[in-house]
């Protein structure tokens, strides 16, 4: 199968899955109690039947259920994610406004955890059974077992409040009007805590996977072959063991990268990070259907894209795939 065929095949599958997800989401969300009109009215501290009726008509909720579903799907077919009457904005705008922050956060967390995690895992495997292995393994386990929000709160108190090293919340210094490099630095500072917090769990995950994968590969025949050639230990680990061991780790990481986009709700909440995870949660508790559906769709689409990208990368780094695909 050549590359174009492969891509086309994956895309078709991906689109089918996405549509199924879109329908499921619609049904799920409509099963939730309350609707956006009620929420708006409730928040205002006053409501009457006429207001609710006005709002429902505005939200399109007075239409028959299937008509609503049809309008929604028809919109998606034309890349129209709908309009949030609550926020008076097209959903796509709202998401696009938030997406960069999420991509920055999750991208940073992902890269840091992948690099640090695989390095830790590789080191631990290399020193399997020694104290440094135990240390790394224990550390990874601890990262893995600590509730994320707990780390988030603790790190805010320690690093932002007590030590004053970095800002505790937000995306940038509001009102500072930095531009260019200064702005990048400012955002970078704000990024440190949330990215590390979010990355901690994944660092642990990748470290553990890398270690296991390395140990598995270390027992492979070709490693013995390399050693029989007189290749030094360090080089055997680097070129033969690590190179092969990292493949499954990267695959899994790629699959998770997609999940990260929609899964950073907690981190975004605790750190007031203006990303789409938070947008989703707000939309959920406001029953802002179109936004909620939009975020779900976009983050699912991210997963699909990341999965395809991962497969692509895998095809490039692992020459065997094409033969077996």
């Amino acid at each position, binding site marked *: 199968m050549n590359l174009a065929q492969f891509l086309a095949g994956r895309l078709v599958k991906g689109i089918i*899955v*996405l549509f199924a997800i879109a329908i*499921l989401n619609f049904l799920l969300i409509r099963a939730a*109690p309350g609707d956006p009109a009620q929420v708006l009215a409730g928040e205002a501290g006053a409501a009457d039947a006429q207001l609710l009726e006005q709002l429902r008509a505005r939200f399109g909720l007075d239409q028959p259920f299937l008509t609503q579903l049809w309008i929604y799907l028809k919109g998606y077919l034309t890349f129209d994610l709908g309009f949030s009457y609550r926020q008076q904005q097209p959903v796509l705008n709202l998401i696009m406004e938030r997406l960069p922050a999420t991509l920055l956060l999750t991208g940073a967390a992902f890269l840091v955890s992948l690099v640090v995690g695989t390095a830790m895992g590789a080191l631990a495997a290399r020193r399997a059974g020694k104290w440094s292995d135990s240390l790394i393994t224990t550390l990874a386990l601890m990262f893995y*077992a600590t509730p994320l929000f707990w780390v988030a709160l603790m790190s805010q108190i320690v690093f932002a409040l007590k030590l004053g090293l970095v800002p505790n919340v937000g995306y940038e210094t509001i009102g500072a009007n930095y531009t260019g490099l200064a702005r990048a630095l400012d955002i970078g500072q704000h990024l440190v805590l949330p990215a590390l917090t979010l990355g901690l769990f994944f660092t642990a995950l990748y470290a553990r996977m890398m270690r296991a994968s390395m140990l598995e590969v270390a*027992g492979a025949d070709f490693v013995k072959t390399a050693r029989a050639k007189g290749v030094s230990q360090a080089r055997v680990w680097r070129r033969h063991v690590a190179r092969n061991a990292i493949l499954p780790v990267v695959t899994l990481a790629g699959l998770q990268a997609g999940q990260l986009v929609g899964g950073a*709700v907690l981190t975004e909440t605790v750190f007031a990070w203006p990303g789409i995870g938070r947008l989703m949660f707000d939309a959920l508790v406001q029953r802002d259907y179109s936004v*909620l559906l939009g975020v*779900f769709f976009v983050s*699912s689409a991210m997963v699909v894209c990341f999965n395809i990208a991962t497969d692509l990368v895998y095809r490039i780094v692992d020459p065997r795939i094409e033969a077996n695909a």
Partner: protein
Amino acid sequence: MNFLKRFARNRGAVIGILILLAVVAFAILAPTLYPQSPWRPVARPFLAPFVNERFPLGTDTLGRNLASGLVHGARVSLMIGVVSTLVALVIGVPLGAAAGYAGGFVDDALMRFTEFFQTIPSFALAIVLVAILQPQLGSIVLAIGVVSWPPVARLVRGEVLSLRSREYVQAAVTIGQSTPRIIFSQVLPNTIAPIIVMGSLMIGSAILLESSLSFLGLGDPNLMSWGYMVGAGRTRLLDAWWISFFPGFAIFLTVLALNLAGEGLNDALNPRLARGRE
């Protein structure tokens, strides 16, 4: 070498099991240790830990005994962890087994279905499910189960797929055993080991997930889980650190123990990988 010996050789696993046993013991003994409801305010709020021996871990914002909350919470958290893992297994194992054994179109369809669930961001899905079904024990357990089954299905499918071509399964076909019987007596028993390992790790993840949901205010308000306790005390971290520290630490310790034990199990049940430790 037998299983127990191999397991005992792994120090971490033994520590993990010991911690788990302690947690389970606390959970079982909770009504004996603290017969009063953990919800009842019993003393001045914000009593520091290690000061009053009746309240060894101090009291919380409403003057409730933290130690009592912790041991009662052990019951709730463990139960949620175990039950939601069972839910995931109940969905994932038959699905994976069917996909792996049937192969072909059935496999394709079931795996698309699994993929589908893996494509929806899982934490977000859990939140939505709990919001829809309203936060109560059943919906939380269901939500956690629903988002955690796909890896189980994949694992079981993989195992079954490899077992299906195993010669003893083929032999069972040739002697005329029926398909359900083959799946239940030849295939599934041999997938138990990896399922147990995965299950033990999943209990930990479920406890973490429940605590995250609780943190977002999506916990069952009638059950004092550790996640609830952390969430309830988090705004007091600065001046009453103990309120959320102890339950947070309990979660940490339990998840850690589950992982240690799970890895120990894995090594003991799967000696091939354990070689790496030598």
